[in-house]
């Protein structure tokens, strides 16, 4: 009674399920962070009761200068997150490379040499993170969580558990609110961050390396099957991230005018929040430097606004915590819609 006919395993879904996503999602993705920033500034300008002061040149200068450390970290973190990874050791790396740069200065190195010592210390930590992830097969979350402790401990060790005082050099002027030369308008550190952001944005867009970062984050198995040496790309990604965290550490030292191994605890959360608010997907494959910079500005304007309002620190912490969760919730919502 049975004939041996086979039902098709799968027959086409109706074409309706394959229509394009509405353009609004694309639009929101690109302009969402800007919208958030504008909204935030508008809200604080309104509730502060003194928009002129909040938006004054001197206050804006304070905000952008305060953004530099998170912004530099966010450049490196964008590359890491776009590749589907994460780095939780940023705060410790900032403290360690700041301490390294301070010790180098104190030892009589030139400011330039100390600057590179700090940056390279960060890069080395990044390389170790990359090696842990690729050679030992530890997931990035755990590998860098471990490094969070290791780098912090190392920072305290090399600094002898003390702050390291440094001689006055041009390195101390990287993050001054009013730059030495008025024609610079803002601190040199701000210009450095802007230039580096531009370079990395171009690298991500227009180089083979940049596209492979996204390929890795989008579908690692596919990237590997296409002959991309994913392990090697990851080593570069984490090392590059580390260099940026190292530079952020030197800027941190410059701002404090001393090396402090206990500084920047929890900075990684600000950095990750900036990147995610900027439209990156924590599941990889997406992220833009421009978005992350806007995300970093959002964090800085938020802090500054709270201070201006005279709100206590704990209110800031609560607000920032809520913003991080909302940003990730928005990320989830977007990807859920996309996969529908």
């Amino acid at each position: 009674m049975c004939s041996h006919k086979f039902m098709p395993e799968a027959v086409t879904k109706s074409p309706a399920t394959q229509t394009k996503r509405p353009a609004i999602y694309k639009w929101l993705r690109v302009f969402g962070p800007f919208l958030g920033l504008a909204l935030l500034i508008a809200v604080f300008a309104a509730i502060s009761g003194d928009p002129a002061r909040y938006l004054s040149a001197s206050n804006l200068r304070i905000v952008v200068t305060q953004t530099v450390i998170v912004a530099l970290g966010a450049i490196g973190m964008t590359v890491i997150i776009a590749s589907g990874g994460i780095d939780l050791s940023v705060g410790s790396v900032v403290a360690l490379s700041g301490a390294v740069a301070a010790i180098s200065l104190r030892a009589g190195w030139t400011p330039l040499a100390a600057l590179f010592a700090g940056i390279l210390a960060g890069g080395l930590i990044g390389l170790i993170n990359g090696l842990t992830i690729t050679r030992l097969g530890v997931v990035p979350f755990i590998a860098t969580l471990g490094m969070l402790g290791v780098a912090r401990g190392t920072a305290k060790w090399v600094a002898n558990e003390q702050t390291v005082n440094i001689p006055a050099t041009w390195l101390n002027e990287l993050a001054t609110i009013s730059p030495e030369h008025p024609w610079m308008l803002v601190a040199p550190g701000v210009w450095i961050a802007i230039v580096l952001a531009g370079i990395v944005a171009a690298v991500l867009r227009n180089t083979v390396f940049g596209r492979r970062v996204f390929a890795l984050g989008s579908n690692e198995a596919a990237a590997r099957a296409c002959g991309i040496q994913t392990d090697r790309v990851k080593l570069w990604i984490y090392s590059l991230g580390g260099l940026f965290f190292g530079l952020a550490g030197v800027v941190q030292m410059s701002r404090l005018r001393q090396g402090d191994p206990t500084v920047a605890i929890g900075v990684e959360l600000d950095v990750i929040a900036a990147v995610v608010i900027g439209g990156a997907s924590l599941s990889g494959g997406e992220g833009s430097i421009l978005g992350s910079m806007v995300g970093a500005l959002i964090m800085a304007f938020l802090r500054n606004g709270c201070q201006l309002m005279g709100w206590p620190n704990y209110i800031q912490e609560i607000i920032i915590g809520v913003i991080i969760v909302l940003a990730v919730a928005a990320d989830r919502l977007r990807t859920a819609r996309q996969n529908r």
Partner: protein
Amino acid sequence: MTLLRLAGIKKCFGATAALDGVDLEVRRGEVYALIGENGAGKSTLMNLIAGALQPDAGRMYFGGKEYRPAGPQDARRLGIAHIHQELSLCAHLSVAENILLGAEPARHGWLDRAALHRQAAKILEAFHHPAIAPERRVADLPIAGRQVVEISRALAQNASLILMDEPTSSLPRGDVERLFACIRSLRDSGISVVYISHLLEEVREIAGRFTVLRDGVSVMSGPVAEVKDAEMITAMVGRPVETLYPARPSAGKSECVLEVRNLSAPPAVRDASFELFCGEVLGIAGLVGAGRTEMIRTLFGLIPASRGVLALGSDALPIATRRRKPQEFIARGVGYLSEDRKGEGLALGLSVADNVTLTNFASCSRWGWLNRPVQAEQTTAWMDKLRIRAHNAASPVASLSGGNQQKVAIARLLHQKAEILLLDEPTRGVDVGSKAQIYEAIAEMAATGKAVLLVSSYLPELFGVCDRLAVMVRGRLSPARPIAAWTPESVMHAAIGSEANLDADVLA
């Protein structure tokens, strides 16, 4: 001239032998079909050829030389491209970036976008598919378009052997024609294609020679034209089909245990009504995507219903006014077997005992404390009854073969004393021996007065075990008729619907 030759290939996963001696010979410029039931080892074999897995025994030769890939890169370098069942593209990148992934044109590391798009467009053109623009994001393409990108990538790699794993499973008929035209032009230009399918019509249309795999062994090979469908099927199934299904007495008049009226869960289910009697097996046929899975998920509270009434025994449950949860249905004696055994049906990391007793821990616990010996004892009883092959009740389910895993899932429904069993594709991915045992279990459930709702895409099995049958078409359920009133042709006809459907010829 031989391009690829396999001799005595074996591969085990744990205790299960996925491949147990496979011989295969693919010539240059031919389309070679690899057919077999789900779980016969087709995909494992493809992964071995593509270097993703290494064989435990046996030899492979490619282009006359011994071929021993350490990884996918080795296969790729030699010109072997593998197109997976679930496509492996980077959805966030553009079409061109995907096609040339790993071989991007660049100058000192800087991407040459113009060249990238030019090269990708050239490959797409050769594929007669210039409509897919190189700069489009892959995420925005329909499935058929993604398949084109995947094949284009294989072409970009200068593949001499392309492995295609059920490439038509997600394609509309028009695109199937286009794919076949492409495969023919690949063949004519000297590229070999190994084509996996279990649709014999497709195999006849596209392939020159074939091999049938059954339970990891190559059991039949030859030119497609010289073999009849029935012979291929006997080779796939491994025994005359008659002995696969248990003899069942026709069910007499009995009481209705589940009545469904106008159940709707748009867009998948629209106004489904049926009655289920105790002691019977009611089959639901239909195409994949017709809404069968969604219907029984709605019946079990996993999908909210927009409208409809359920009567379980004598209780009427308006299920649309309030969201009913699965635990409510379990408490009323409904058991559900998911079609997605690994994702939803079983907790793979847990033991057989935990999986069997999961929905009825009360049977082996007191005050919330599990009595492990009792649990093991109860589980062992089910293992004997359903002939579940596992080391013991404490073995993790993941270490069992697909067929035995499925029997564990069925044991759970029996252990929870379900009186109404909703079974979604209970024999998918299961070896023939386990299939027969599952049919036997279903027959016994019915014989002991339980009611079974059986969703299946495999017609012979519906005809083999059901008392009555209904067909679902685009969310609508036909009236259930006694199985004797159906023929395979009439089921097909009903499944396709009255409208002339382009997919009709796939089924003919």
